[in-house]
């Protein structure tokens, strides 16, 4: 125990005791809880009557293989009418999983006509965008940028489907987006505190149908957004049951309540000839990231130790892919389970460098990667989990020290030994993130990172390089 421990306790206790209890602590809690629940399930409330109707009409179909109901999620496009299209049943040989039944993802045949292409995206469907609320789409785009640590200008959001729950005026929006160069899709629900991202995932390739299992008041619901040209969206509650039509919300958009065991439930999209474009298992139930209610199996929330710093420097896609693959290999997990945030990219003396934070369920860890442009040889370093709120991230790759300080940093100074005065590292055009030559023989070199004001009395970091490397872990 030290004096600061005691003083901290005393200071906190003193401050806390001046807070009087609320006169009515229960006031508003149930009301707010009800509003939260509505935020999460707005569409299921609105669609429940339709869903009941769909279930009723689907009942006879359970004994009529190979047909779909007239009230099905069939969409008039350039195909035959719903009542005349032969639809393969679940036991039909023409309905194998195509592209793999990854939960929530989409696989697909070579039917690129139906796949989402962000250069020529599917048209927006649903409620007119102004009805979602003033600035809702812009707010979602901005929050998506904050969520992924990129500037708003680096987010290009494409609305795909939207609706408003009239009684609560809660807006829902399915969207695709390019976020700092990465293609993603998501499902956002408005709330008093801002948009809540119940889905935020990488965009599958090819993206033939985007499916989200969302919480509901009574039962969860499945929402599938696909090309408006698909002819039908159907739901199979388990392996033994036939597929039944989902409730159409718009051309290429459908929903259905999820009841019973969802482990073997699946959905599929059909083209006008009745061929299966995509079939996949129902994704895990979605939830808001950061909320401990997120069930296992959902897209893991972004760990709290991921920094929200902007990316400094450029990271070409091919370099990014190799760095991510190296991180996955080093972490010992499949690359598709890995999520990363790119923080720094640079090229010098024939080598390219990347610093990122990566995670695959737990805390994020810093990962530095470099490769020789001429011969392709690579080097990398994986740190322990990053401490929350770091002042800088540093890594050593052979004889090069990577230093990526927080965005508020100003100048970086370096001394080759403890007895030398630190000298400013030349600006490398990457906003205080720098590469420093550091022969392996050095053991007592010193790093000094000043804040934006350049006040040497209040540096963001001052210590040995070894301490900097330890501090970034």
């Amino acid at each position: 125990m030290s004096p600061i421990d005691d003083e901290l306790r005393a200071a906190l206790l003193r401050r806390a005791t001046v807070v009087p209890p609320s006169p009515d602590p229960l006031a508003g809690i149930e009301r707010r809880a009800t509003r939260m629940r509505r935020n999460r399930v707005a569409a299921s409330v609105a669609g429940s009557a339709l869903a009941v109707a769909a279930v009723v009409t689907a009942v006879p179909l359970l004994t009529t293989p190979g047909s779909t109901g007239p009230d099905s999620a069939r969409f008039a496009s350039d195909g035959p009418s719903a009542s005349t299209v032969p639809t393969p049943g679940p036991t039909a040989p023409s309905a194998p999983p195509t592209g793999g039944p990854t939960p929530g993802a989409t696989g697909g045949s070579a039917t690129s006509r139906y796949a989402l292409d962000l250069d020529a995206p599917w048209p927006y469907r649903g409620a007119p965008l102004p009805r979602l609320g003033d600035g809702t789409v812009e707010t979602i785009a901005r929050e998506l940028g904050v969520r992924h640590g990129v500037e708003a200008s680096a987010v290009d959001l494409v609305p795909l489907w939207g609706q408003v729950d009239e009684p609560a005026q809660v807006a829902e929006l399915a969207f695709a987006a390019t976020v700092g160069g990465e293609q993603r899709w998501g499902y956002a629900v408005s709330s008093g505190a801002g948009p809540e991202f119940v889905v935020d995932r990488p965009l599958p390739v090819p993206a033939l149908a985007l499916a989200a299992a969302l919480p509901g008041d009574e039962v969860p619901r499945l929402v599938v957004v696909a090309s408006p040209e698909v002819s039908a969206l159907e739901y199979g509650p388990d392996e033994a049951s036939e597929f039944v039509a989902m409730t159409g919300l718009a051309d290429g958009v459908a929903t259905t309540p999820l009841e019973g065991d969802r482990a073997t439930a699946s959905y599929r999209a059909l083209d006008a000839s009745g061929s299966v474009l995509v079939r996949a298992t129902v994704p895990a139930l979605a939830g808001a990231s950061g909320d401990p209610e997120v069930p296992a199996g959902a897209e893991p929330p972004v760990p709290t130790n991921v920094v929200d710093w902007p990316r400094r420097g450029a990271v070409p896609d091919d370099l990014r892919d190799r760095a991510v693959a190296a991180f996955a290999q080093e972490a010992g997990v499949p690359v598709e389970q890995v999520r990363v945030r790119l923080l720094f990219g640079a090229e010098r003396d024939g080598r390219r460098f990347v610093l990122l934070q990566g995670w695959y369920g737990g805390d994020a860890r810093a990962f530095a990667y470099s490769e020789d442009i001429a011969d392709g040889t690579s080097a990398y370093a994986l740190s322990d989990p990053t401490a929350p709120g770091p002042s800088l991230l540093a890594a050593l790759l052979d004889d090069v020290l990577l230093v990526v300080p927080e965005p508020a940093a100003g100048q970086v100074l370096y001394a080759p030994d403890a007895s030398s005065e630190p000298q400013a590292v030349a600006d490398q055009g990457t906003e205080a993130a720098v590469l420093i030559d550091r022969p392996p023989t050095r053991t007592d070199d010193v790093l000094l990172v000043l804040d934006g004001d350049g006040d040497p009395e209040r540096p963001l970091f001052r210590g040995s390089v070894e301490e900097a490397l330890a501090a970034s872990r």
Partner: protein
Amino acid sequence: MDAQAREDFRSYVVARSGPLLRTAYLLTGSRADAEDLLQTALAKTYLSWDRIRDREAVDGYVRRVMVNTQTSWWRRRKVDEHPTDVLPEHGGGRDSTADLDLHDALWSALALLPKRQRAMVVLRYYEDLSEAETAAVLGVTVGTVKSTTSRALAKLREDSSLLTGSADDPRTSLPTGASA
């Protein structure tokens, strides 16, 4: 939620809202934000009440929701903050004694910490949670709690307002190497 569960929840709120509000205040530094934060956390708890089997663990659940929500709020509000010429009013008055001056200075320095560091300080030094308990609330490793708390204490020590007192006064020349 059935009538009995609802009554259980109400009893919990009545019994625990006072202490939890104080924790929320230490996390936010503002009475209004604290009330909003606690209400949000309790509303989420209400929605999950039927799934919380261990009633002894409710405080931990609420703390975790508060910390996560507070971090989320910070992320959202960061872009909306507006500088002002007038410092916001603090909850307590300023006393003239050296002890209270130091406490005020600590409180001010605490407000400058990153939210996660502040949360760890509050959980460790106000809630008196162990490192393992703090790690469980925050969903991080014990090592992360140790290193982050150590960094938070280091920042508090470096705060100039804490170093203006007499060097002979052990409280104002805060030591290095304090255990986290």
